[in-house]
């Protein structure tokens, strides 16, 4: 299963290589930034519980974790057309290196998927379990941002 999802992710990232015809990528950028926003909002719910700022509620936690897992299953290829990097257009922090290392990016997106499954499994347990699983998710965020995301301007 793990190998399968990895393969799917790599294949999905492969779609990036298809040269885009249209040059207006604002919709693609909005879509990919929107999915990260969905991740952040749901991570915020789980993080609030893990930090004790919000009372633990199993159903709310599960819904948040499920949403994160759902985002991790979105096919990334169409969201990242060639030429939608931060050197080619405004409004994105996506580094050109993304398009040079698509297999690596696919692997890193797959890693988010795996970590999200861990979060789904932990959500029903308690706040401490969520905290540990969040750490793993955060690690996958950083792994990608380290190499492929420019600082804020």
């Amino acid at each position, binding site marked *: 299963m793990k190998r399968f999802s990895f393969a799917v992710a790599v294949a999905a990232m492969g779609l990036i290589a298809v040269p885009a015809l249209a040059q207006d990528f604002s919709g693609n950028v909005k879509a990919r930034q929107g999915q*990260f926003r969905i*991740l*952040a*909002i749901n*991570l*915020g719910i789980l*993080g609030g519980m893990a*930090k004790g700022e919000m009372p633990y509620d199993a159903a709310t936690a599960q819904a948040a974790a499920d949403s994160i897992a759902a985002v991790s299953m979105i096919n990334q290829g169409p969201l990242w057309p060639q030429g939608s990097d*931060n*050197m080619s257009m405004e409004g994105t*922090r996506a*580094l050109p290196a993304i398009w040079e290392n698509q297999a690596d990016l696919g692997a890193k997106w797959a890693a988010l998927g795996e970590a999200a499954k861990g979060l789904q499994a932990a959500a029903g347990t308690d706040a401490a379990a969520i905290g540990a699983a*969040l*750490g793993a998710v*955060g*690690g996958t*965020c*950083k*792994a990608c*941002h*380290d*190499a492929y*995301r*420019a*600082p*804020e*301007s």
Partner: protein
Amino acid sequence: MRLNLVRRNVIKTFLVLTISVGALGWLLTGASPLPSDGFATLDSDATRGEAVFWAAGCASCHVAPGTEEADRPILAGGQSFASPFGTFHAPNISSDPVAGIGSWSVADLGNALLRGVSPKGQHYYPAFPYTAYTHMAPGDVADLHAYLLSLPASSTPSQAHDLGFPFNIRRSVGVWKWLYLRSDWVLQDAPTPELERGRYLVEALGHCAECHTPRTALGGLSQRDWMAGAPNPSGPGRIPAIHPKTLNWSVEEIAYYLETGFTPDFDSAGGHMARVVSNFARLPATDRLAVAAYLKALQ
């Protein structure tokens, strides 16, 4: 006769001036290592050294480009750092005795970290953040030495830096050090042990100001703009300000960010900061809180 005397005096004065300016210049640009016996009596411990290693962020620059995170990194060097003065390449600091620092003594490491001086007595360029490490406690240098020598060796040779004139003359770094290598702290008052620890982590080991503080035309840190944010040295964008005038995160939020990479609104750390967070995640929670306390204490 009279004219000759005047001329001779002029020549004499000129010579004396030239020699003294030259001598002063030679002195200014020379390397000044530490007294050689300063590290002889320290006991060193690799386990303690590991905490120093992660806090000082050695691996973030000294692993080969594109290397995945590892518990015991191979410090083969090779990452490039562009600057207005040229491009610097992080050297091999693995335990290899020839390509790396395997043959270094504790005093050699101390000279490198605290004075920016190589075992051969040459200046290092300040891309290596010795203006921060100069505040390191000698015991931490000894512990770090023990830990570095316990890490795997790599025989990859270090690359030479690509620098134009006059920056390719290492002695010019002597003048730079005279201007910017300071032994005093920026945050002068650290009245609690936590603030003292935070100051040590931020100003010495973590060398946070290297990216978060803007530089002067000569490449030194502008202390009056301490932690006020700066242009990203390695591409577009800015490194954010972390001074309390700008950063309104709570102490807990800063500590949580350093542990997980999550901002208060659950965005996640990017670029080089992702590596910094990975390093800080390995430190005790009290250290992350100390860093947060330090940032809050900046005026």
